């Protein structure tokens, strides 16, 4: 078994490994390891253990820890082993130490000395072993102990040492950037190292440095480009080849760096176009590693200043990924698509069906990635479908981490693109109900604010929003357990607006609130919200001049709260009691109806104190000296309270004792008081006296500053983020009603004519299930629509104008780029061995393109039954009309079935309008079998990437 020599192994060790290997269960394994721990504890501290035996014990300790048991009893022996003279034993010692200890472990201090000694060893392998340990064990405090030695090693004759030294420096930079800030030039120097290994390693720290500070490294663009060029031209030693690709890992690292440097920098990017294009052509798309490099090229192209030719290459590569049978490639394709749509949004459309397949794939990883893509391509026209999908997915997973993430994405999208108030409320309800307390409380507060402020269009829609919220909440309260955060929102909204539209009586709403408080009696926050809501309802009643009859259950609840252990609840209950006893006028001024959006006036100048201050000054008090006019010797915070300034006066001070002049100046007005002290010690007196004389003003300055913050919060702000589309997030349902249809046409119209052609030709021979088509239509703007109304696209509708504008901008920038490109077309490269460029230069010849139509239908064969619901998306403009007329809160629980849920609103209104579409659909259905056969043929022809060397692991496989 393996070579012997220095790696000598005793029978005992072999038996241990064997028994671990044969363990049938975790319990059995644990038993073996526990026995082993006992043996080791006994043996390892015996005197005079031979080196080899000791090394073996240490490896057994590594096993113990690897299998999840504590081996700390033996750490010290591993530390001792690092002192050994034998290289192998020493390195094993270092290995064990790096596996056992973290950088803050107490034993590290015992190793630093050994490391120092080893770093100066004549044997370069010893130096390497020590450098490995440096990378794992040295922390911020111990960096100075080894830093000079490491820096010296950067010029070591052995490339292996230089490589590890550069990585040690990298590690120091990660741990404490300031410790090596004067040494960063070394990374640049090592980039030009003769040895490709050292150069390759140097790319790692450089990547990190460039991520942090791009601008300082712009001068290296040409160096990176020329290195990448050389790598791609196979100038590196053969040893770096991997599966016929020249140094692919170095290529990938370089592409990552170029992406950083070229981002938003036209000039830098132009220098990269040639080499990146070259790599696109040279990559072997039949191997995994070739595709890995291709993927990195796509990432690079989508980050740097865009170039139409490269974008075309990238788009081609993406379609190859998406059409592959390999799930890995599909995953990469979806990810790459998500990057590219940022610059060319139209590309998504030609892959719509592939995307939908991925979305419906049973593979969870692929599905998540696709949802991420959808999240990136959401706009006002498809937000409903996408958010519904996301919520459906969210409901079905248990992973809280991802649930939280997807919930926050749903909220973000809903806030940005909500087509209507009702939809927004219902979506938020779903998110809250299913993601429960995972939702950030900020989201809840945002929701309350939205309901209070409305969309700011007009009072009618705002009150409609509130009524629909109240209605849906009353409905939801009937359901079983709701999350606390959501209940808080519900209570608040019911309190503010429960009786606002006069639809519900005060006693009905208060009854509901009491129910909540009783049903969730263990949740104090909810109860507090409920009491306050009750207070508001009663206050509004009294203010409106109606007589208040407290329900019996409410009364008993109040009695309970008045005696509550929670002082907060008590306080609220007493407040409620007090409010009820007041007359209408008083109540109205305490609790004005619908005033939660009013700014609370804050008198920042605290003018009401002026009289008081005047009096004090007349009585001999010192006037307030503003902070910026005070001496710079003490922190402002020291003035804030007595305790603080006293401790700070006694603690160590790091500022120099200077600026005596200023101190004297500020003390001048204090002389009368200071002279009462026998020994004038400058600072404490200064501090205390200032403090005493200025108590009132400084307190008021404090109050002023905090009030200032409060006020910023209170300033009316539009809720939600509006970065993408100020028009859509605030758009009213009325404007949507008229514009939606055109919006979708716009979406499809941004694609170039070629895509339309491929669609048309595909239509003739390919059957696509109606559900898919519909989903595609609602996600991407619909391929069927592009046929129906090809010419209407130039009317720019309001909600979609941003999309259109963006694409125009992009186009024009591309034009510029292409002009530029033409002028700086790289000279014919002598070293380019005329790689088969046909593939990318003439994409129309691409076999994949031709097969495109055939590949699609296979996974969608399942059924073509549901013709009825097709093309519903074409009707989507009317959804808004429906929404505005339908009473809110009728969100139908039964719609959870994905497809009907998706199409629910459209289905409802398509009863009349789509018979002609049905005919069209059923006529397309005939080719199903035909296309299936073709697909099988395609697969036979072998679009699948070849698998790695099958003979390599004969032993493993056998």
């Amino acid at each position, binding site marked *: 078994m393996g070579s012997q020599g220095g790696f000598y192994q005793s029978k005992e060790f072999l038996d241990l490994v064997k028994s671990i290997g044969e363990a049938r269960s975790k319990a059995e394994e644990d038993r073996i390891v526990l026995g082993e721990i006992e043996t080791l504890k006994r043996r390892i501290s015996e005197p005079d253990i031979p080196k080899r035996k000791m090394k073996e014990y240490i490896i057994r300790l590594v096993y113990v820890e690897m299998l999840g048991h504590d081996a700390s009893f033996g750490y010290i022996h591993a530390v001792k082993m690092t002192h050994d003279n034998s*290289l192998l034993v020493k390195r094993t010692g270092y290995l064990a130490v790096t596996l056992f200890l973290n950088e803050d472990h107490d034993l590290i201090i015992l190793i630093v000395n050994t490391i120092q000694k080893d770093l100066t060893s004549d044997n370069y392998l010893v130096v390497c072993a020590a450098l490995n340990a440096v990378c794992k064990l040295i922390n911020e405090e111990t960096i100075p102990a080894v830093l000079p030695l490491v820096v010296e090693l950067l010029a070591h004759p052995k490339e292996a040492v230089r490589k590890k030294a550069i990585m040690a420096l990298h590690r120091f930079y990660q741990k404490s950037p300031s410790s090596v800030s004067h040494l960063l030039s070394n990374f640049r120097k090592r980039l030009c190292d003769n040895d490709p290994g050292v150069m390759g390693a140097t790319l790692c720290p450089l990547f990190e440095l460039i991520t942090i500070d791009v601008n300082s490294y712009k001068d290296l663009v040409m160096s990176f480009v020329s290195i990448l060029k050389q790598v791609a031209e196979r100038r590196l030693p053969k040893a770096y080849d991997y599966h016929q690709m020249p140094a692919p890992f170095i290529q990938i690292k370089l592409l990552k760096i170029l992406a950083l440097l070229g981002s938003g920098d036209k000039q830098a990017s132009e220098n990269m176009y040639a080499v990146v294009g070259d790599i696109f052509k040279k990559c072997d798309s039949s191997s995994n590693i070739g595709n890995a490099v291709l993927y990195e090229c796509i990432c690079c192209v989508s980050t740097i200043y865009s170039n139409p030719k490269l974008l075309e290459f990238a788009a081609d590569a993406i379609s190859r990924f998406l059409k592959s049978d390999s799930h890995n490639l599909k995953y*990469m394709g979806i990810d790459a698509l998500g990057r590219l749509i940022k610059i060319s949004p139209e590309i998504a459309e030609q892959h719509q069906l592939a995307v939908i397949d991925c979305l419906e794939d049973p593979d969870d990883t692929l599905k998540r990635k696709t949802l991420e893509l959808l999240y990136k391509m959401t706009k006002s026209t498809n937000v409903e479908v996408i958010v519904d999908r996301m919520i459906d997915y969210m409901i079905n997973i248990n992973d809280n981490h991802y649930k939280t993430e997807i919930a926050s994405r749903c909220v973000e999208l809903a806030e940005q693109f909500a087509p209507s108030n009702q939809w927004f409320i219902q979506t938020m309800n779903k998110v809250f109900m299913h993601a429960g307390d995972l939702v950030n409380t900020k989201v809840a507060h945002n929701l309350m604010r939205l309901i209070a402020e409305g969309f700011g269009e007009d009072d009618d829609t705002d009150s409609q929003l509130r009524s629909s919220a109240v209605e849906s909440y009353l409905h939801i309260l009937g359901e079983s357990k709701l999350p606390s955060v959501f209940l808080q929102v519900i209570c608040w909204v019911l309190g503010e607006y429960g009786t606002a539209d006069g639809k519900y009586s005060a006693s009905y709403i208060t009854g509901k609130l009491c129910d909540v408080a009783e049903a969730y009696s263990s949740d104090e926050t909810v109860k507090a919200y409920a009491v306050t809501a009750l207070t508001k309802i009663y206050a509004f009643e009294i203010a409106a001049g109606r007589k208040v009859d407290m329900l019996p259950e409410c009364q008993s609840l109040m009695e309970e709260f008045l005696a509550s252990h929670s002082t907060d609840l008590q306080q609220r209950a007493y407040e409620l009691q007090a409010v009820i006893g007041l007359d209408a006028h008083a109540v109205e001024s305490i609790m004005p109806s619908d005033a939660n959006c009013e700014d609370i006036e804050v008198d920042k100048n605290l003018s009401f104190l002026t009289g008081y201050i005047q009096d004090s000054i007349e009585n001999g008090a010192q006037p307030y000296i503003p902070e910026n006019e005070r001496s710079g010797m003490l922190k402002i915070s020291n003035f804030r309270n007595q305790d603080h300034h006293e401790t700070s006066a006694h603690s160590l001070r790091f500022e120099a004792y200077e600026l005596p002049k200023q101190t004297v100046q500020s003390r001048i007005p204090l002389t009368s008081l200071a002279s009462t002290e026998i020994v004038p010690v400058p600072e404490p007196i200064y501090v205390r006296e200032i403090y005493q004389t200025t108590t009132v003003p400084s307190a008021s300055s404090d109050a002023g500053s905090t009030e200032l913050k409060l006020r910023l919060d209170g300033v009316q702000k539009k809720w939600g983020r509006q970065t993408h589309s100020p028009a859509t997030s605030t758009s009213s349902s009325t404007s949507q009603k008229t514009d939606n249809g055109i919006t979708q046409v716009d979406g499809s119209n941004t694609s170039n004519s070629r895509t339309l052609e491929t669609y048309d030709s595909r239509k003739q021979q390919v059957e696509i299930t109606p559900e898919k088509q519909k989903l595609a239509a609602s996600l991407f703007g619909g391929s069927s629509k592009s046929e129906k109304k090809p010419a209407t696209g130039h009317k720019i509708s309001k909600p979609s104008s941003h999309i259109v504008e963006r694409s125009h901008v992009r186009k024009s920038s591309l034009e510029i780029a292409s002009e530029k490109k033409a002028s700086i077309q790289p000279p014919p490269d002598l070293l380019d061995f005329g790689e088969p460029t046909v593939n990318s230069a003439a994409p129309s010849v691409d076999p994949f393109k031709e097969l495109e139509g055939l590949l699609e239908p296979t996974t969608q064969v399942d059924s073509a039954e549901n013709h009825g619901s097709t093309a519903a998306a074409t009707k989507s403009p009317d959804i808004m009309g429906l929404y505005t007329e339908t009473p809110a809160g009728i969100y139908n629980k039964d719609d959870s079935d994905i497809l009907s849920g998706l199409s629910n609103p459209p289905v409802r209104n398509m009863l009349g309008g789509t018979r002609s579409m049905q005919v069209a659909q059923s006529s397309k259905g005939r080719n199903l079998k035909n296309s299936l056969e073709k697909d099988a043929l395609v697969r036979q022809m072998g679009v699948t990437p070849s698998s790695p060397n099958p003979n390599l692991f004969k032993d493993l496989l056998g």
Partner: protein
Amino acid sequence: MGIRFILMVNKQGQTRLAQYYEWLTLEERRALEGEIVRKCLARNEQQCSFVEHRNYKIVYRRYASLFFLVGVDNDENELAILEFIHLLVETMDRHFGNVCELDIMFHLEKAHFMLDEMVMNGSVVETSKANILSPIQLMEKAS
């Protein structure tokens, strides 16, 4: 930092090698290994070789009875990591000749030495098999 950890686990879920590039306590390691091994072992051959787990991704590859799992940051090139795993296996294969689970078990330290040559500070630093193996061969000769 791209790579957070490298694990080798057999199909019974038993750890055969573990190397972390950020410090985790014994309990954290145990829990993490349990979670991700369960996730990865439950997947079939057709599914992606990538799994999202908390805030990072696992790229895994199976060779006979042994799974190689690499935890990476979210912006890492998954396919490249997949091929990195293969490179590691090819390297071990060159050294041991038809490497198998037992080779790694009996020569745990050598497997670690190879990894230490290939990955430092969570980045891939060496991909030439000759460079990776030469220190190990020299050490063998010397002792």
